[in-house]
């Protein structure tokens, strides 16, 4: 028993199954995002190997896989957050609505206003709730007067399901909220800029089950208007909120399919081993 526990996961047979390309349906018709031949290096270490994947319009794409499999790295390529890491080198074709987002004339600042991101740890600015939500709108000059801004802040908070709880405390610091509220505040802050795509990097891993349930409901609601790509460690969460699921393993994309078929009828042995809990 103890021997098995201390045994390194990477030495186990269940973990080491050969990967020959991606199985399932990584490519779809009429995609929002298309990515081809994605390689990512951190210095000398390669983190992602030749990933081809499409993200469809108004779908929720869940990315699952064991720690260190590259799913967060892949997600952060989609709005060029990896640009901020000096040793990180991204290659491959990334197209948002057919437009190359890594093109020389592509402005990452503009891209990030179209592709918003919500992080693992709630990270509100140490400012008031109002200023947190208004930040992006002020930055990009989305509103022309105070009344419009008030309206936008209220709408965003309503859409993030937070307005009822904070409507009397808009000028209190956002950092004073509970963890779940903070994460919904971060979501409100992101949708206030009205992006086309929202990336979520394990948005509920720091939250309790009730806060998690609220955020999951919110994701399903938001998917009507936005394209959402979410990285999660919880397979239940992936099953509940996503329409498609991608399984990453050791930097490779193993399997992509409709969420139902991934969880009920996985094509690849590794996927099955992972979702049945043989490792991970």
């Amino acid at each position, binding site marked *: 028993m103890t021997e098995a526990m201390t045994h390194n996961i990477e030495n186990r047979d269940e973990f080491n199954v050969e990967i020959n390309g991606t199985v399932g349906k990584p490519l779809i018709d009429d995609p929002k995002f298309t990515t081809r031949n994605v390689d990512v290096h951190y210095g000398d270490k390669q983190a992602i190997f030749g990933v081809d994947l499409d993200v469809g319009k108004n779908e929720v794409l869940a990315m699952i896989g064991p720690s260190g499999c590259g799913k967060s790295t892949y997600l952060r390529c989609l*709005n060029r*957050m990896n640009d*901020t890491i*000096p040793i990180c080198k991204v290659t491959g074709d990334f197209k948002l609505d057919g437009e190359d987002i890594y093109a020389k004339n592509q402005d990452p*600042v*503009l891209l*990030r*206003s179209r592709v*918003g*991101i919500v*992080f693992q*740890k709630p*990270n*509100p*600015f*140490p400012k008031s709730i109002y200023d947190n939500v208004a*930040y*992006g709108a002020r*930055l*990009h000059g989305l509103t022309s007067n105070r009344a419009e801004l008030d309206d936008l802040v209220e709408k965003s908070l309503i859409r993030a399901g937070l307005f009822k709880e904070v409507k009397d405390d808009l000028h209190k*610091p956002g*950092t*004073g909220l509970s963890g779940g509220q903070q994460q919904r505040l*971060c979501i409100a*802050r*992101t949708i206030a*800029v009205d992006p086309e795509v929202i990336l979520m990097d394990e948005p509920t891993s720091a939250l309790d089950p009730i806060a998690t349930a609220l955020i999951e409901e919110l994701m399903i609601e938001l998917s009507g208007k936005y394209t959402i790509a979410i990285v999660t460690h919880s397979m239940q969460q992936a099953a509940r909120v996503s329409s498609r699921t991608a399984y990453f393993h050791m930097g490779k994309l193993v399997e992509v399919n409709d969420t139902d078929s991934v969880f009920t009828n996985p094509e690849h042995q590794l996927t099955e081993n992972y979702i049945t809990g043989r490792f991970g």
Partner: protein
Amino acid sequence: MSTHNTDKIKAKLKKRYAKERRFRAYGIASLAISFLFLLTLMVNIFSTGLPAFQQSYIKLDIHIDAEVLGVTKASDREALFSANYSKLVKGTLKEMFPDAKTRKEKRARNKLVSNSASYDLRDHVIENPELIGTTQSFWFLAKDDVDVYMKGKIDRNLPEDDRRIKDFQLTWIDQLQEEGRLEKRFNTTFFTSGDSREPEQAGIKGALIGSLLTMLVTMALSFPIGVLAAVYLEEFAPQNNRWVDIIEININNLAAVPSIVFGLLGLAVFIALFGVPRSAPLVGGLVLTLMTLPTIIIASRAAIKSVPPSIREAALGLGASKVQTTFGHVVPLAMPGILTGSIIGMAQALGETAPLLMIGMVAFVADVPQGILDPATVMPVQIYLWSDSPERAFTERTSAAIMVLLAFLVVMNFIAVMLRKKFERKW
């Protein structure tokens, strides 16, 4: 199952607690020792310096004789200015103490009041020429020896040869005191005039303004340059670049360079090459800026480094540019740390003497500087100059100047702490 381990742990526990108690005792002891040193220093400075805030004044009834002065009420300003007022003062003293016979005694009699008495008198007359021909009472500064005696620092029971105040002077002082013409008052001169060779006329104002102007120059240059350099090195500079590494190493080394070297640099570069006026707060501020910069840069970099990356990601993720992220979020959050570093740097600069010696700020400057280009001195240099003076009355002024310097420091730090409080936010 666990009893075996429990016994082992219990055996060790007593030792562990004893160690903890010992460590706490060491801490308290070191605190007590440092507090004791501070207390000794403070008591010493205050007990020596407090008398300097009082000064003896002598009241003389002076008949402003038009004949002695050689002027009339109608005389112009220039004539009034150059008239011989000291003759009036000496004449008055002669009438009051006619018993002085020898040359030595006569000279001592004239030195009961400070030589500023005649200038005071002149100013009064110029201000109001109607005084000419009348008899008026004026309070003049007593000479430093009289003042020192009044503060009880000369023991009249000592043999006459061992004191600076001789017996005949004592009888005059006693007479003045009996007539109520000699009393101690609050020493306004100390706060309103510049340095002087005469202790009773010497004041701290010149050095105080000099320090203030120098600090303003230092602050105005070192804070923005230091913070921007730190921001660039932390946020924008390419990492693992050889040039950046060289710059970093040099900044760290500069922090350890003896301050007098900066003074030599200032002399060679600012004064000799750029022709900045010698002894001026501008050149002092420039030299102290060089000295303060490494401190501010190192502290600011540490503060910027400690801002959590999640805040940068949040702003970047919303589409803020690098500069907006840096100045909108990172720098404000690092501001408490940056200010702490700046306080330390400025406090060091305020107390610095050595580099200023090199650029002429050690000169005797009697005038209060009006701007950053006027010759000036600063408080630590003033303290050094006074501590070096032979007159007894400068001893207490040295300590009083230290008190003013400490007060200046406290005020400066208080402002910085208030600013820091303003920037401090809860996470």
